[in-house]
Structure formats: structure tokens, C-alpha cells
């Protein structure tokens, strides 16, 4: 596989860019692998990549029922940040953010990671106190975070209406300048290419239909392309985690909800940071194409429909028109939903399950994209060693029995 560089770009320009190699193979599944990863999104492909790169395990298959990055990896609003309240979350998401900072070089694939800053607004006194507490807690964990007053917010994002007479007056904001956005598809593609280069079989159009389990140990997975044996299986399927857990015969503390997002028609640059507001539950950034990328809320009921209710869109667009008045003149081009796997404490589940050899990485809920490299790396370590990576250990499934929850429900920078 050729390395991407300015020289390969020039070389290919002479052949009118018609001779670029395919970025990864499309192999048929072999009968047996050392490790099978179920789910070809960022987390699954990244896990395969780190297994091959850092742990020398390259007899690995990634099974994807649709196409690469067609699930939540391609459906999120691409925001990356690590401003979490609790120590366990801060350590995990900051680990991910540090990997983001070198990811394009590491993968030799431009994931367009742009540290344009993430701003979380406070609209009332309670927001303001909570935000101040969170900023200080984050700084104690050695993560960058600062407090901006209303005028500084206005300077960062002039399109915001910060007037005290507005429907949602802005008192101030927290700002994480190392946060930002990345190109979500490129993350899946970069990891797929990097894993494939190291011998991993990335198999698309291959849905898992069951697990072969004997004496409490996983032996193989049943798929639409036949039975594939493996002693270690890692599952990273986001919204469908409960469905896979049900196939393996155990329950999960997860509910799946549609979470919606939408984009406007492209306009000239008006916003060079990410703006989030928990109180009105909206987040907005501007893509390099010029579209405003707008994250909405999730439906309150279990659904796998990948649609989401129109009332959610109505609610957030109403609020956004108050907060960012120019939005009222924009057309919304596309709307979609991803199925998010929400846990009771809004923190992920990474590690062992009641079935030996079967590991889950799930429960990322509404905020999995930002964690992709960190999640993949600690999950790869967990699969390679058979025991949880130190950063993943607090996020065990067992915490729901012991009561050691990591309650980010009201604590994380965005209301869920």
C-alpha cells in the first residue's frame, strides 16, 4: 500500500488521479481468526488498527453488516472535546484527545482534526455556577479549560445573540481551546486503511446473527457469510449492543434512542468554533464546506428507526433562531438520526461480559465520536491482554452491580 504524501499527490496528478490504489482490500472471511471485531465504525476499526500496530495481533477480522462508518461514525456532529467532570471520564477522554492530536500523522490519512475550540454556554445563574465548578474540576485534572464572560463569548462567536433581553441571555461560557471537530468519515477510512495495511481483514456486508458459546466461552460467531471461529470477540456496535448481547444470552443496562442532527445550506465562514448549549440542548459548528452542522436532542423512547421525531427538530430550531438569529434565513438541507446506546449513568461500558472471551465496548450514548481513538486503543489493550486497560477498568459492566457508577448524566458538559 503506497504512502500518501505531497509526492504521491504530484505523481498521481500526472495520471489525472486515475491510478490511485484502493485504500483497503475486500477479502472473503477466513474460517478462523485470533480476534474478531464486530462493528466497522470508528471504534471497531480503530480497535483492529491498534491490535495490529501496538500488540502485534494482525490475524484479525472486522465484521460490518453495512458499509464502513455507515452507523454513528457517519451520523454524529464531529465534535471532539475532553471537558468531563469526573476523574475517570476526564482521564479516558483526555487520552482520546491526545491521540486525536497526532492521529493524521499516525494514520498517514488526513482526518482534518481542527482544534477550533469548544464553547459551552451558560444562560442562567445555575448554569453559570455549574459551569464554573466544572471548569475548575477539569483544570485540576490538568485539562485546559477557561471561563469567558458574555463579551468574550460575543468576540469568539459574533453571530450569537448575547443581549440580556434575548430569550436565552448568555451569561458566559466555558471554553476548551484544544477541542474542535474532525472529519468523521476520514476517521473510519483512515483506521480501515491502517488496519488493512497491517493484515487485518475488513469484511463488509457481513452481519452477525449469533454466537457459538460452549461452557460459558465464546468459540465462534455465526454470520450471514458463515461461521467464523475466534477465541476472542470484541463487540463495538453502538445502538445495537443490546441486540448482540441478547444473542449471547445476557442483558445490558442500555436503552437505544434516535439522536438527530441536521445541516444547513453552505454559507460563507461565520463561525470558527463549536458552540454548545445544554439549556436549550443545541450544538452548532460550521463545516469546511460552509454548512452549519447542528446537533439536536434524542427521542425519549426506545427506537431503532434511525429517523427521530420532528418535534425535536422544531424545538431546537426554535431555540437556535433565538440564539443565532441568522439561522432564521437558512435552509436546512439534510436531517438524519443515529441510534445511540444510552446507559443509566451516561458513561460507556468497556470490558468483560458474562461470556468468557466476549468483550463489549458500548454505551457511549450521545458522545462516542470524540472518544474514538482512546476507546479503540484501550479496547485493543483489553482484548490483547484479556483484562481491562487501567483507563477502561472503572467502566466495567460490573459497576452497575457494585454501585460505583460514573454519573456524567448531569455532570458532562452537555445535557443528555
Amino acid at each position: 500500500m503506497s504512502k500518501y504524501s505531497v509526492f504521491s499527490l504530484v505523481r498521481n496528478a500526472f495520471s489525472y488521479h486515475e491510478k490511485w490504489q484502493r485504500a483497503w482490500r475486500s477479502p472473503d472471511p477466513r474460517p478462523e481468526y485470533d480476534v474478531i471485531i464486530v462493528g466497522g465504525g470508528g471504534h471497531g476499526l480503530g480497535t483492529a488498527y491498534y491490535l495490529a500496530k501496538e500488540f502485534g495481533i494482525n490475524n484479525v477480522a472486522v465484521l460490518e453488516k453495512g458499509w464502513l462508518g455507515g452507523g454513528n461514525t457517519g451520523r454524529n456532529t464531529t465534535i471532539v472535546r475532553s471537558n468531563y467532570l469526573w476523574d475517570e471520564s476526564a482521564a479516558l477522554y483526555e487520552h482520546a484527545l491526545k491521540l486525536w492530536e497526532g492521529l493524521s500523522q499516525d494514520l498517514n490519512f488526513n482526518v482534518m482534526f481542527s482544534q477550533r475550540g469548544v464553547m459551552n454556554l451558560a444562560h442562567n445563574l445555575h448554569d453559570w455556577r455549574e459551569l464554573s465548578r466544572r471548569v475548575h474540576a477539569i483544570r485540576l485534572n490538568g485539562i485546559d479549560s477557561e471561563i469567558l464572560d458574555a463579551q468574550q463569548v460575543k468576540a469568539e462567536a459574533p453571530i450569537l445573540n448575547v443581549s440580556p433581553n434575548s430569550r436565552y441571555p448568555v451569561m458566559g461560557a466555558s471554553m476548551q481551546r484544544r477541542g474542535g471537530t474532525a472529519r468523521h468519515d476520514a476517521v473510519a477510512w483512515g483506521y480501515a486503511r491502517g488496519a488493512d495495511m497491517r493484515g487485518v481483514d475488513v469484511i463488509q456486508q457481513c452481519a452477525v446473527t449469533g454466537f457459538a458459546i460452549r461452557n460459558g466461552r465464546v468459540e465462534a460467531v455465526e454470520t450471514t457469510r458463515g461461521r467464523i471461529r475466534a477465541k476472542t470477540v470484541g463487540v463495538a456496535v453502538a445502538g445495537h449492543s443490546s441486540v448482540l448481547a441478547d444473542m449471547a444470552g445476557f442483558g445490558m443496562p442500555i436503552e437505544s434512542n434516535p439522536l438527530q442532527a441536521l445541516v444547513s445550506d453552505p454559507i460563507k465562514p461565520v463561525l470558527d468554533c463549536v458552540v454548545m448549549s445544554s439549556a436549550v440542548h443545541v450544538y452548532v459548528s460550521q463545516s469546511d464546506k460552509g454548512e452549519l452542522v447542528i446537533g439536536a436532542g434524542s427521542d425519549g423512547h426506545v427506537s431503532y428507526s434511525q429517523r427521530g421525531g420532528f418535534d425535536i427538530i422544531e424545538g431546537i430550531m426554535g431555540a437556535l433562531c433565538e440564539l443565532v438569529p441568522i439561522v432564521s434565513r437558512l435552509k436546512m438541507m439534510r436531517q438524519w438520526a443515529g441510534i445511540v446506546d444510552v446507559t443509566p449513568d451516561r458513561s460507556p461500558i468497556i470490558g468483560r461480559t458474562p461470556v468468557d472471551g466476549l468483550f463489549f465496548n458500548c454505551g457511549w450514548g450521545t458522545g462516542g465520536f470524540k472518544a474514538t481513538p482512546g476507546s479503540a486503543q484501550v479496547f485493543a489493550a483489553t482484548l490483547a491482554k484479556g483484562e481491562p486497560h487501567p483507563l477502561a477498568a472503572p467502566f466495567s459492566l460490573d459497576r452497575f452491580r457494585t454501585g460505583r457508577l460514573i454519573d456524567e448524566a448531569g455532570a458532562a458538559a452537555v445535557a443528555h
Partner: protein
Amino acid sequence: MFLIGCPWCGPRQQIEFHCHGEAHVTRPNDPDAISDAEWADYLFSRVNTLGIHYERWVHSHGCRRWFNVARDTATDRILAVYRMGEAAPKVKT
């Protein structure tokens, strides 16, 4: 958005209602007598079915009464509405 047939008010828009998750989760009779794992299962484990899901709704902006719904979570189609205390009806997608 879908229409929900409240057993008392008739069909109304979904925004008048709130969903409160899986129905027929029974609180253990004697919490002290069961293990932590069983208690965790009651508190946190949910069926989260892809297919027919039996769930509780409340008509928050209407009569404020609770009832149960059987809904296909793949299509969001409501298949049955029944009152609290009634057994879950057998339905097909």
C-alpha cells in the same frame, strides 16, 4: 412524530406524551433477600428490544394518566394500547 391513542382521550400527538421505558418491570418483593446482581438487574437492565417493545407512556399534557403501549421499535408503529395492570397483549409486527 406519531399519533398515540390515549385510552381516555383518544388519538393525540406524541408531543403531549412522555415515554417512561420498559413496562412490566416488577420490583422485587423483598430487596434485602436478593443479591446485588439481582437488584442491579431490576434497577438497570432493560430489554431494549429491536422489534415489539412493551412500554409505559403518560399523557403529561392531557389527562396525565399512565398506560402501556406495544410498539415496533424498528418502525415506531404502535400495535396495541392497553391499561395499567392489564397483561401484555400478544401482537405481531
